């Protein structure tokens, strides 16, 4: 009896080992957890484009969409970890705690959490994109292209990510045109085409001739097209929705990172990382520049893009003052990542208060 147990134990270990080796060598399975529907043509849509890139690289993928940032997330994560997935990407800020909690229970499964900062276990990595670099480019274009010197900005929620975007946009616009005013309207939604269109219309009626957005739908660029003003695409290339209005778009490009990380899992080289990639690493992509922009502006933007990529130019280079005139970043210095991550004050030149 005793012998039988030992033998079966050993043989099952051998079997398990063979299977594991086989699994690592071939069938790495990646799972993606989405906050919204893949059909939002915005945030989740772009993550799903990244997932498809992983498929194209020859790996199996699964996704679960519309997962609330609650106890449900834990349940979904546990189920995905239990059903043989080797790496799980959780693509919304609110999955931070569930990801870390479930990661503790499954030390052999790798977890990748987007836009978070908690890495409590060695099998948890975090990643995010420096979208503010893209907004530096948009600000430069907006400041040059505006004739009314009024630029409209439709914002979603007052969180550091959005404030950082407004600041980097305004700083860049002021640099090329000190007379501009940035008018901000908070829509208090990420995603409601009707409301976003109304917000854009209000800004246009008040004289804004360039509209920037930090909400997800294409309603704003379409409204700009109707009204004959300029706009910028968000998250994906929105040019086909408004060919005359859209000057360029800032695209979220997760594909290369996802493929990279899944490959690392397959090769056994995966290790914990905190990634915050920008234009330089290709996570933030600037779409084609519209031919309505003068040639010298286009070449200026190209150069800026290259300088942001190489690190020669930083979006937040001092001196930067807040609205009250207090120094935020000293001359010759750049804002560090800690400051950027928690940015909750407007820079000088932005009108209005941050809603509390």
């Amino acid at each position, binding site marked *: 009896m005793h012998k039988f147990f030992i033998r079966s134990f050993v043989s099952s270990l051998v079997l398990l080992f063979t299977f594991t080796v086989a699994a690592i060598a071939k069938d790495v399975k990646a799972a993606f957890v989405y906050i*919204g*529907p*893949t*059909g*939002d*043509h915005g945030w989740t*849509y772009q993550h799903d484009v990244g997932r498809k890139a992983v498929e194209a690289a020859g790996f199996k993928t699964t996704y679960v969409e519309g997962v609330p940032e609650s106890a449900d997330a834990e349940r979904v994560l546990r189920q995905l970890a239990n059903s043989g997935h080797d790496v799980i990407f959780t693509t919304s800020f609110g999955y931070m705690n569930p990801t870390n909690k479930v990661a503790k229970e499954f030390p052999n499964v790798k977890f990748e959490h987007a836009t978070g900062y908690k890495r409590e276990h060695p099998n948890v990595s975090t990643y995010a994109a420096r979208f503010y670099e893209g907004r530096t480019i948009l600000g430069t274009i907006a400041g040059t292209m505006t004739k009314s010197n009024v630029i*409209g900005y439709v914002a979603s929620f007052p969180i550091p990510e959005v404030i950082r975007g407004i600041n980097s946009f305004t700083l860049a616009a002021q640099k090329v045109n000190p007379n501009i005013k940035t*008018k*901000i*309207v*908070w*829509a*208090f*939604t990420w*995603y*409601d*085409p*009707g*409301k*976003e*269109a*109304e*917000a854009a*219309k*209000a*800004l246009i*009626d*008040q004289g*804004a001739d360039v509209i920037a957005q930090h909400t997800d*739908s*294409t*309603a704003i660029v*379409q*409204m700009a097209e109707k009204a004959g003003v300029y706009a910028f695409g968000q998250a*994906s290339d929105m040019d*086909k*929705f*408004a060919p005359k209005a859209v000057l360029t778009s800032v695209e979220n490009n997760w594909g290369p990172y996802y493929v990279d990380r899944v490959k690392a899992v397959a090769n056994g080289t995966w290790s914990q990382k905190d990634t915050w990639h920008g234009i330089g690493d290709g996570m933030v992509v600037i779409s084609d520049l519209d031919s309505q922009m003068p040639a010298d502006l286009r070449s200026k933007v190209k150069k800026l893009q290259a300088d942001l990529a190489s690190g020669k130019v930083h979006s937040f280079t001092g001196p930067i003052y807040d609205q009250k005139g207090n120094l935020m970043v000293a001359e010759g210095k750049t804002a560090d990542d800690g400051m950027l991550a928690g940015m909750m004050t407007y820079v000088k030149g932005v*009108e*209005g*208060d941050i*809603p*509390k």
Partner: protein
Amino acid sequence: MIIDINFIGLIIASIMASAVPLILASCGELITERSGVLNLGVEGMMIIGAISGFALMTVTGSLIIAIFGAMLAGVLISTIFAFLTQTLITNHVATGLALTIFGIGISAMIGKNFVGIPGKEFPVLFKDLKDTIPLLGPILFGHSIVFYFAFALPFITSYFLKKTKIGLIVRAVGDSPESASNQGINVRLVRYACILYGGAMSGLAGAYLSMIYTPQWIENMTGGRGWIALALVVFSTWNPIKILIGAMIFGGLTIIQFHMQAIGVRIPVQFLTALPYIVTIIVLVVISRDSRKIRLSTPSSLGKSFYKDN
């Protein structure tokens, strides 16, 4: 800031454009409720109309087919509701809620293939007259046919209910189905017709959103407007003209609060975003506080099933 008269005209025009889907869906639901049926599936029927209109426009390329197709889709999905509540005598509230959940789900499923496709431009009428008259020009001219229809609809609905025989029958069925039935009226048939009509109007409201207002398809694009339309019916005390007022106030405050933000008025933004909901309810409650009139216009058998076999 210089406020010129055309600026006010532009604002009023955008307010009216944002009120269109609410007016359409509310007026449709009003007829349904006047016949004694409470259909909480407005949001679901709207979103089905939105995806059907957009899908048909993309596939056939014909705006007319798309608009009527969206109305037909609203009719079809409301037929399910009518069959369940009128033939199988299920509970109105539960069935209506199920209809909304069903509509959101199925529209997302159909819509998968239509994400990221730009819509077509919808033709507008009297575009050239827009600049001829100050203030009134942008308000009266340069809108789609659906826009004009929506602003005629409350008056047509009011006339229909008050002055026509069929309107009287609808009201009779909603107030006292037993008496109506004893008079030889086919209660079930009238209710079926009213539910399907409500479905058609909700479908049209959805198509307006996905084809005219913000021409694109994305999931959940109705964004709760169906629920607001339902609330408008109740707070307007089943009066189509008050629906028009309520929809204008609601749309108006949404747009005016954006303008106030852009001007830089220092009022908490959260308060401004809540304003449309609060003020619309207050105004409608105030203008409809005559309890005798409420009793007269509330369909007495609203939401109650009618059992009699014909």
